[in-house]
């Protein structure tokens, strides 16, 4: 077989990452070698994924690759398979792109640390783990990859073990993460006991006919396992701890990539294995969890005073959007959900990189200590503002495009099913979006604007490599926001369609006709409809805005608007107005910026503060309770 045929691309894109990890362990002492290996590996992985766009995304093919060419025989899949349909490829593309950008960023960001070879090894293992997880067609393989990525993530969280809380965060993550992984393993094995197979395709074919108590138990176990990976609500404190303590380039991976693997797992589990498309109870479960996640985490973020911790809570809030949208189980909802997943990866990556840039230059991420960096780090500021506008859903950036689709999808669902519950999702999503904006205004004011503290007078702009990484993501933010039609047509709609084409997935894994022979009713892929009721064309809007701005500028220049008087701070005229007093350092920012809002919610905030006690036992208890609730729900309601 031709070694360069498309068939091999998925395994290559996983292999290069692990191979790179191995090479860095052996030859990583040299700076040049480890940087070039890491860059090459991540870049190659990305290129392999891109090579699959044409057949899989546009052509609708499903690529299945059997390790050692052990194709299924006698109706049983014994070998280990990689199955790449549009959904897998969508997440694969996302992962590989962000990993590549994070790798570019790491080179200069990690230049001051020791043990850098170990960093790159773990980095590539984390990337490889996620790639493996989203491309695999085997449930147990999924578990292994989840373990690899959890492990690498834990080790990387503790990488800067002198940072306050890094070890603590890693330990908590390890404990709860292990409970989650164990859940996945237990769920896998319970399914195996029922179906005697681990292949996702075969499982998907067999489960709907044998929905016994055990399979439902397995569902609950797997669901909670993937929830821990996506850090959904009872597990969100871990995300906050881990993101805050890890190096920024790793936070990007944890929030942008690791959580997506959890979401991917949940989509595969609910819509492929258990085929609960259109099942009301499942919709309720997912949408409820998503809405709670998005709201709780955004309010938690408002109360934070650490840059990265705040971003971490926002990432879970955005994951809540994704889950709520996906849980609607309409074509538009799934398309909007995966679109938002993609956008979240991009803008949250950008924001974490900006936070990392601030940390790199000032040595702190405490919002109370920073301020006025926009004059010292203009490029970082612009990048941050792009990311902040995107996550808060300011048109025309990408966050708006996907959130807007989510509002429509949920409202449409509410109207179509005449269920007022989905209306609450729309409202919750819209309010959350505004709260997100509020907390980013807080960050903007506390870090980039306002007054510059004395000790940061000599802060410089970050080096080129870091700016380049941020620039790539910022450009992606703008581009994917300006052409939502193309993004949905070429990326998210194929992915959403893939969710509907379960039969094709099964047949591709097990050979044509298998699904029809095993299942009583093969889920027929009715052509899903992506009708939207709103209108939004960002490019025209931008053109209009540009014309308006241009006209304004012309008027302004003719009115000598540009003739401004500038001067030094020593001249009293150019000092700030302090009610006549001499200027002194006075930065308004950090905690109490939204006093007017928080005062009304003070009981809620103090309750949440008490709840997030930071004791690992509590978090483990939450995990156990979540597991119990999920089991109960699965057994009683589903």
């Amino acid at each position: 077989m031709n070694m360069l045929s498309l068939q091999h691309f998925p395994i290559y894109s996983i292999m290069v990452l692990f191979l790179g990890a191995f090479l860095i362990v052996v030859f990583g002492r040299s700076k040049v070698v480890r940087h070039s290996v890491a860059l090459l590996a991540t870049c190659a992985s990305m290129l392999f994924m891109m090579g699959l766009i044409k057949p899989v995304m546009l052509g609708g093919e499903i690529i299945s690759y059997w390790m050692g060419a052990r194709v299924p025989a006698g109706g049983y899949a014994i070998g280990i398979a990689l199955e790449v349909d549009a959904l897998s490829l969508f997440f694969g593309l996302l992962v590989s792109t962000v990993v590549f950008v994070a790798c570019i960023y790491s080179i200069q960001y990690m230049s001051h640390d020791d043990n850098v070879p170990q960093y790159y090894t773990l980095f590539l293992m984390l990337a490889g783990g996620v790639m493996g997880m989203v491309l695999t067609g085997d449930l147990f393989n999924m578990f292994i990859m989840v373990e690899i990525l959890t492990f690498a993530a834990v080790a990387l969280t503790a990488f800067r073990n002198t940072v306050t809380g890094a070890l603590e965060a890693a330990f908590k993550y390890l404990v709860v993460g292990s409970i989650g992984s164990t859940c996945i393993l237990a769920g896998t094995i319970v399914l195996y006991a029922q179906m005697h197979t681990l292949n996702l395709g075969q499982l998907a074919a067999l489960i709907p006919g044998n929905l016994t108590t055990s399979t439902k138990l397995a569902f609950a176990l797997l669901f909670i396992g993937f929830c821990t990976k996506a850090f959904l609500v009872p597990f969100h404190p871990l995300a906050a701890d881990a993101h805050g303590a890890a190096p920024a380039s790793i936070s990007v991976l944890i929030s942008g990539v690791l959580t997506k693997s959890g979401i991917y797992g949940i989509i595969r589990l609910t819509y492929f294995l258990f085929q609960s498309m259109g099942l009301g109870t499942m919709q309720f479960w997912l949408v409820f969890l998503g809405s709670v996640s998005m709201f709780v985490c955004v309010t938690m973020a408002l109360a934070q005073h650490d840059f990265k911790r705040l971003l971490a809570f926002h990432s879970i809030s955005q994951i809540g959007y994704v889950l709520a949208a996906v849980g609607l189980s309409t074509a538009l909802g799934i398309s909007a959900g995966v679109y938002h997943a993609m956008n979240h990866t991009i803008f949250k990556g950008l924001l974490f990189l900006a936070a990392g840039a601030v940390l790199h230059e000032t040595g702190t991420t405490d919002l109370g200590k920073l301020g006025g960096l926009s004059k010292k780090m203009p490029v970082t500021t612009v990048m941050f503002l792009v990311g902040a506008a995107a996550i808060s859903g300011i048109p025309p950036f990408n966050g708006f495009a996907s959130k807007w689709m989510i509002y429509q999808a949920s409202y449409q669902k509410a109207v179509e099913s005449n269920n007022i519950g989905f209306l609450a999702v729309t409202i919750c999503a819209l309010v959350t979006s505004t709260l997100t904006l509020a907390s980013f205004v807080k960050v903007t004011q506390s870090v980039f604007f306002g007054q510059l503290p004395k000790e940061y007078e000599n802060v410089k702009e970050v080096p080129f490599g870091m700016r380049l990484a941020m620039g790539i993501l910022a450009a992606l933010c703008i581009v994917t926001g300006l052409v939502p039609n193309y993004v949905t047509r070429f990326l998210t709609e194929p992915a959403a369609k893939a969710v509907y084409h379960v039969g094709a997935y099964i047949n591709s894994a097990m050979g044509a006709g298998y699904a029809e022979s095993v299942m009583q009713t093969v889920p027929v892929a009715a052509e899903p409809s992506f009708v939207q009721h709103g209108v939004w064309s960002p490019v025209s809007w931008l053109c209009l805005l540009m014309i308006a701005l241009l006209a304004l500028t012309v008027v302004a220049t003719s009115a000598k608007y540009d003739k401004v008087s500038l001067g030094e701070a020593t001249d009293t005229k150019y000092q700030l107005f302090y009610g006549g007093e001499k200027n002194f350092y006075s930065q308004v920012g950090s905690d109490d910026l939204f006093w007017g809002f928080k005062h009304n919610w003070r009981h809620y905030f103090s309750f949440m503060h008490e709840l997030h006690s930071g004791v690992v036992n509590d978090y483990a208890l939450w995990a156990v309770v979540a597991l119990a609730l999920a089991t109960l729900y699965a057994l009683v309601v589903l």
Partner: protein
Amino acid sequence: MALILQALRYLVYVLVFPGFLFCFMTGLLLCGIDRKLVARMQKRVGPPILQPFYDFFKLCGKETIVPAAANRTVFLLAPLVGLAALVVIQLFIPVFRFSAFNSIADVIVILYLLLIPALSVIMGGAASGSPYAGVGLSREMVTILSCELPLLLVLLAIGKVVGTALGTGICFSLSKIVDYQMAHGSLLGKLSMIPAAVAFLLVIPGETGNHPFDAAEAETEICEGPLAEYSGAPLGVYKLSHAVKMLTMTSLFVALFLGGIGTGIENLMFQLGLSGGAAGAVAFLLEILVLFLLCAVLTFLTISVVHAVTARLRIEQLFKYYWTVVAGLALISLVLAWYGL
């Protein structure tokens, strides 16, 4: 040739009619009317109606000081972006049957576009580096937060009512909403829309930052908050934006709730026996006039009267008021709309 004409037409839209010139004139005029009315209600003579024009041009002639602590680019660019964004929003709001651009943005998008002018104030204030601006921008943000919930509930209710009537489930397109009203009478005539209209009216002074919801720009306590360091032309642009925002909000109300009045104008034309191009032009001018009068009445109701009889609310009172009373009204309307009333 046709393309050039089309482009010219769009340029006229942006620069003259629903765009700059119209916004500039009507916005400042509304502002002047408001000031005059408030003065009359307080038994004062009040400034001339053209006073906001004088203020604006005077500010253009003043020196523009950029404080040394400020980030110059953002400081100077923020007001321009805010004004431009507002003007663009105005382009999307139909004037009865006329709508300059109707397939670019729907009401939900407009809800978000309305954030941009407010953000421009926040960014400008933050860029100035003043602690007064810091306090002011925090209040400005809480004000946005407060207004957002009732506003979005109102918009969802409208989307549901019109969507049900048109048979599409939901309808967020502004021009469709107006067309529907032209055919079936104003939305204000529906029972479910009355609380929504009241809620929207209460949101108007909050969105524009007028008394008593002007905690963000309280000149007596925090020196006009985000605008504390602005002088000269940029300040004038902010004042202009404020005036245009009054126009935007009131004309949005007209489009959403009173769109049916346009039919009356057409009937009038019909009764007068006018037809053809001349009638169209007359009707168009009449529509603009009616729109302006309605905006003025709404400004009087929501901004002037409220200004004259109330004292400024503290920011947390403001938040509570909007999230309980106003949002409650909007929610009632949404529930009524849901059950088809």
